[in-house]
């Protein structure tokens, strides 16, 4: 049996799955101030009378980190940057407590200016005096050579061993210094509170005598053992939309191209599944005001939901962006798209006569019948969603390309299906699909697709390998590890073999080794370094990942 629980903005959903079927589901309103209770009460609901030893895995998707960051409840972190030559570091927007240290590493990981250790020591003392106990140290190109970051950390802990120091190269291996700095900062800023929360979950689960492993869902649709997730809790941000997309993957036939439309009360989340693979944001998630390197699905949030406020404007209507409260037909104060759909008998919730009252009132303002105005509301909602979906595909098509083949191969893709999940989808999704000339699908269990997605998601993992045979070194960006390359003529095949070995080791360290075999090479490239007219070495880049996918135990839906 598999258990998935997704804490959403409005409701928390839990499902119990056995042999590919949802055998129980529970839904409670989300209480932001008591997330533990939110997770446990639907869990208790679905495991009542279930033989606990039959539970194989429990996967949680929570908004804890999202809430902490949105509410500013993260711990204060001082940033110590070694920017070297380039942009004026004052032009980065990374927070208030930023210190710039002299020293520089270049794009190939060579030291071009030694670290100013004395300056670092002074800054460390200042920060200790100011009461900081968390510091992120980030060098430009620190992922190509972490020596300066390691030295900075050593100096800081030399000044005060109690200070927790996060190094940029361990937060992310990709190019983009400000994103890496923001990611490192958020990583350390959320760790303590997350650990407390994870401990409480562990305790609550063991009190219930559940011995199955507990996983947490990440923004890239992958799961990680709860204990391992404490290292980088910020990766669990935005797991809700990831859960919905994974749910659609689980409920739909594989290899299809679908747009996932999750219509909630206030907003609609759009996500893309291209040939059965969820589309990952090419740059990393935007968290609050920070651009980060956190891998996340490319989700677009549209300010339109079932409870959006409807207003008369000219001879038409506008929807949202605010929520009106519950729909009028459910006892709310204002007319909403839900009332329009209820009045047109597209859905069957709430009180029909209240829906009529809402539409008649709105019609009076526009000098037209209740039916006409209800159609107007639905048309505007459908048009908005179709336009946003089109723009999403367009944006994907317009992503930059740096190689000839990338420019040549990118074809125009449009979805085969529009798949609705979440409460508000029932009425609108078929109309959106019709307008787009595609198939509209509301899968069975669509209202708990997010919890199903969490339950059946498998782990994900990335590895960024780079070898510089002239300098005789290789680095694995995610781990901050490096080693020696003896063969100056290393070819791409050898580099890929090495990366494959390294990702297995990495999977073991993170407790997801049983999926290491699923790792694929997503990008590999070699550059000959020519100086004068001869080859002096090679730069080999290999990127591997275990992509988002479903665990083999899942046999339901389209499988």
């Amino acid at each position: 049996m598999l258990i998935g629980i997704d804490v959403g903005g409005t409701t928390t959903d839990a499902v119990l799955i056995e042999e590919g079927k949802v055998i129980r589901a529970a839904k409670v309103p989300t209480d932001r101030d008591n997330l533990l209770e939110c997770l446990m009460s639907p869990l208790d609901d679905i495991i009542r009378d279930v033989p606990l030893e039959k539970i194989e895995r429990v996967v949680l998707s929570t908004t804890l980190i999202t809430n902490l960051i949105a509410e500013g409840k993260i711990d204060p972190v001082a940033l110590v940057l070694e920017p070297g030559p380039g942009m004026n570091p004052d032009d980065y927007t990374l927070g208030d407590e930023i210190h710039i240290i002299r020293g520089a590493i270049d794009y190939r990981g060579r030291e071009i200016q030694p670290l100013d250790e004395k300056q670092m020591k002074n800054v460390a003392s200042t920060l200790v005096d100011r009461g900081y106990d968390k510091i992120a140290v980030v060098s430009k190109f620190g992922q190509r050579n972490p020596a300066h970051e390691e030295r900075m950390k050593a100096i800081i802990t030399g000044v005060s061993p109690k200070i927790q120091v996060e190094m940029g190269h361990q937060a992310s291996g990709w190019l983009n210094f400000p994103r890496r700095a923001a990611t490192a900062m958020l990583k350390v800023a959320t760790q303590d509170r997350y650990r407390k929360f994870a401990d409480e979950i562990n305790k609550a689960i063991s009190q219930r005598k559940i011995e199955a492993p507990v996983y947490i869902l990440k923004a890239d649709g992958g799961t990680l053992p709860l204990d391992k997730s404490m290292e980088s809790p910020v990766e669990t941000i935005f797991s809700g939309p990831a859960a919905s997309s994974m749910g659609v993957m689980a409920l739909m036939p594989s290899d299809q191209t679908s747009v996932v439309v999750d219509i909630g009360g206030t907003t609609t989340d759009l996500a893309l599944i291209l040939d059965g693979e969820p589309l990952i944001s090419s740059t990393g998630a935007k968290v609050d005001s920070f651009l980060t390197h956190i891998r996340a699905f490319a989700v677009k949030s549209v300010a339109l939901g079932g409870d959006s406020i409807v207003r008369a404007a000219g001879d038409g209507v506008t929807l949202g962006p605010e929520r009106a409260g519950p729909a009028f037909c459910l006892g709310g104060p204002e007319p909403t798209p839900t009332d329009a759909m209820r009045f047109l008998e597209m859905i069957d919730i709430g009180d029909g006569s209240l829906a009529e009252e809402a539409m008649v009132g709105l019609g009076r303002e526009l000098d037209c019948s209740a039916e006409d105005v209800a159609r107007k509301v639905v048309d505007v909602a459908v048009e908005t969603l179709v336009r946003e979906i089109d723009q999403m595909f367009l944006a994907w098509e317009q992503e930059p390309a740096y190689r000839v083949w990338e420019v040549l191969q990118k074809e125009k893709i449009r979805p085969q299906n529009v798949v609705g999940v979440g409460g508000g989808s029932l009425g609108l999704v078929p109309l959106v699909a019709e307008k787009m000339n595609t198939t509209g699908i509301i899968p069975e269990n669509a209202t708990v697709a997010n919890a199903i997605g969490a339950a059946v998601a498998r782990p994900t993992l990335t590895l960024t390998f780079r070898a510089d045979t002239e300098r005789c070194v290789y680095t694995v960006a995610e781990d901050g590890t490096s080693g020696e390359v003896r063969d100056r003529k290393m070819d791409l095949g050898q580099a890929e073999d090495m990366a494959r070995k390294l990702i297995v080791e990495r999977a073991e360290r993170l407790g997801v080794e049983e999926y290491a075999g699923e790792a694929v090479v997503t990008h590999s490239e070699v550059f000959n370094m020519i100086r004068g007219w001869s080859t002096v070495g090679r730069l080999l880049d290999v990127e591997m990942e275990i992509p988002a996918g479903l665990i083999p135990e899942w046999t339901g839906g389209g499988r």
Partner: protein
Amino acid sequence: MTGKRMGLIFFPAFDWAISPTHPEREERLLYTRDQIFEEGLMDLPEVEEYKPRLAELRDIARVHLCVPNVEAQVTDAHLIAAGSTLVLADAYMDKKISNAFALVRPPGHHSMRVAHGNRGFCNVNNEAIMIEYIRQKYGIRKVAIVDTDVHHGDGTQEIFYHDPDVLFISFHQDGRTLYPGSGFMDELGGPKAMARTINIPLPPETPDEGIHYVLDELVLPILKEFDPQLVVNSAGQDNHYTDPLANMRFSAQGYARLNEKLSPDIAVLEGGYAIETALPYVNTGIILAMAGLDYSHVREPDFVPGQFQMSRTMKATIEAIVQHQKDAWDRRDELTDTAVSRAGPFYRRKKSIFYDTDMISESQEESVKMCPHCPGYMTISSRASKGYGTSDRVFGAFVPLFACHRCREEAKEEYESRKTDSAFDYIYLQDKTADDYRCYSVHEKNERVY
């Protein structure tokens, strides 16, 4: 969109090279990629990154007479580099961005009107293709090109040599000391466009100070007077003090400040082969300058401010060059009148062109009608020897964008009448007034319309 952003296309063509060890190879913009991505420049609110596209064959045919056809002279990489400039041109003309930088390869400024092959690492001329696209599509007439590559932009010069509405200014290392061996002060333009070509051959080892003197005293004042509707920077980066193929002493700071002062509407990358020591820093500097951001922290690791000084002799040489070209510019109308009256009804000249990359020797005969009503139509007959006794003989008739009706008819007659001339293999018509580009194969007796 605010309209306060710079548009950027970064197309490093990581899967394209002239040959594995050629300076124009996959690795060229690799470290530039590392630096500008690591800086996070693409995330800046001041920078909008665009996706490249392929130029259409007719976009190439609008500028070049490709022998035997466009496909034979371009790879997909060329079409993407040229197409990138067109994407940015559209965004700029639609006012979605306030300026743009096409950080793309392969380069183009050595490509001339007739293209038999690759010369100076170039097959087709990206700037010229972009400018003629813009003039055709958006009705712009006056354009200024400032070529800041260390090599003379001989291709661009040749393409616009007779066009009085295109001001071409190139400063470069003296042609007596560097490829392509041209770009001297007496190359001032065709009779009807005198002093619309301004060459500034600089002594080797000229540092930032010298080039900024030229910019302040000559280039900027001329630009102001010419008052173009579009300013294009043909942005080579090989004046850098570490460039392996040239001998100048320019720095990343110097390049960034140049772009700040020149404030080009669109910059297009040309040469620059110090792929580790210069390009990452120069490109970061140019992007920051064009985006209106502080570039004062951009510095090469080994650069010491003030390390390159001008000698008194060098200073005097440069001052004399500037004065000489200033005079030419001031006398442009007089020079034009004299040259036109001296030319008679048709201006004719013979040229020989060597394609260093592809080892082709071309000889050309060019003829321009000294039309009193328009810039005049042009014909070129060209013969290219490609070694082993093979050669291509071609004839082209060219109608400029602002040609009069009569010139257009005469050019078309030339095209028709040569179709049966067995002295040629291919006959071309490039009619910009009708945006009509044709090629006729004399042997196969068929016509291709682009």
